[in-house]
């Protein structure tokens, strides 16, 4: 629909929309997060959901205790290698469409534990992440910003065509492989379909 006509109509009190817009508007204003936290970032996440920052303003106050009812996974904290299979399993149990916010330095890269032996160097090695928030921990404002970024992302999703989201692509995987506990490390160490090590050329 023509934008000019549309604004003209709205001035006359006629509201026009498309199914896509209505659908995305509904989805972006009722993102229910999965109520789980892994470390200190979860404290900031709780603060963001309470009265002072009030995540309810964005329609996301309903932290679901079951992955079956959740739309969003906020990976708030350090993902140890021992915990990683459980996080991937929880993600697999969430119904589509589902989104992931990786919150804090640990969840996006391993953070201060990056050089250790026991911490996963970013949850994006196993599951697709929509928004990364840096910070140690990020302030509730940063989580709200990530949330608004995710809302914008959902709002812009086209329901048809090549750019349509994963849940509308029939061939897209509905489950992501859960890593196994190996003798020295998790096996596989990353999901190659989701993440590849960056090819970095250092200057001499």
């Amino acid at each position, binding site marked *: 629909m023509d934008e000019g006509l549309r604004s003209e109509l709205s001035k006359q009190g006629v509201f026009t929309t498309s199914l896509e817009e209505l659908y995305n508007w509904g989805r972006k204003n009722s993102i229910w997060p999965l109520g789980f936290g892994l470390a200190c970032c979860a404290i900031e996440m709780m603060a963001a959901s309470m009265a002072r920052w009030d995540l309810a303003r964005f329609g996301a106050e309903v932290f679901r205790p079951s992955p079956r009812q959740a739309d969003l996974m906020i990976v708030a904290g350090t993902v140890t*290698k*021992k915990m990683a299979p459980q996080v991937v399993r929880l993600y697999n149990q969430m119904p589509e469409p589902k989104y992931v916010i990786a919150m804090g330095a640990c969840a996006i890269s391993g953070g201060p534990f*990056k*050089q250790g*032996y*026991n911490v996963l*160097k970013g949850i994006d090695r196993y599951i697709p992440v929509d928004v990364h928030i840096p910070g140690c921990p990020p302030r509730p404002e940063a989580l709200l910003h990530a949330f608004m970024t995710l809302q914008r992302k959902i709002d812009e999703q086209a329901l048809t065509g090549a750019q349509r989201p994963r849940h509308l692509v029939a061939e897209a995987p509905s489950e992501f492989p859960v890593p196994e*506990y*190996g*003798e*020295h*490390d998790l096996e596989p*160490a*990353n999901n190659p379909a989701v993440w590849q*090590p*960056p*090819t*970095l*050329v*250092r*200057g*001499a």
Partner: protein
Amino acid sequence: METLEQIKGRVEAAVPGASLEIVPNDNPAGQRSLLVDNAHALAVARLLRDDPSLRLDYASNVTGIDWLDKVVQEKRKVKQVIEGVEREIEETIEHKKPGCLEVVYHLYSMELKHGPVILRLRTVNRADNARVPSLTPVWRGAEFQEREAYDLYGITFEGHPDLRRILMWDEFKDFPMRKDYVEPEDYEYEPTPHDQLLEKARRHYPS
């Protein structure tokens, strides 16, 4: 509290056959400790806990140390006859000092409000005979900490009620806190690598 020498003397008198050694400490804290032989460790621990003037009823911390095998160089002067003249020359002798794993217990008394007394136990070697007696039967609070030492250093505590890995998963085979541990190659990117990390980054991304 008595001095370490007094404790050592009393323990050796009370536990027949026990041989204790005071481990010196050169750093400014100067906190010395008692090295106990494995065969009598349990009896010594019981004595330290139950003795009315010590009453060390609280093991606040159990930790492990990895001592690698090392080559010790010793210089000594030897007289030798060179070209008919007797001269004194310096000779370097290298001998191998076998490594071991060590467990350190920090003991305090809640009742008498004193401490710490530090106990050390050593394994025979770092490989097939990395065993020490468990002191969990004496101090119940040592249970998880001994499991942690087993998990990260591979020290087997004999007599422990439930010796399993506690932090790493059960299938894990390595001992990450040992000095010769090789970590998995899952490193990818560091914005400002330096020192050891720079070496690692170079190995990972040869320019």
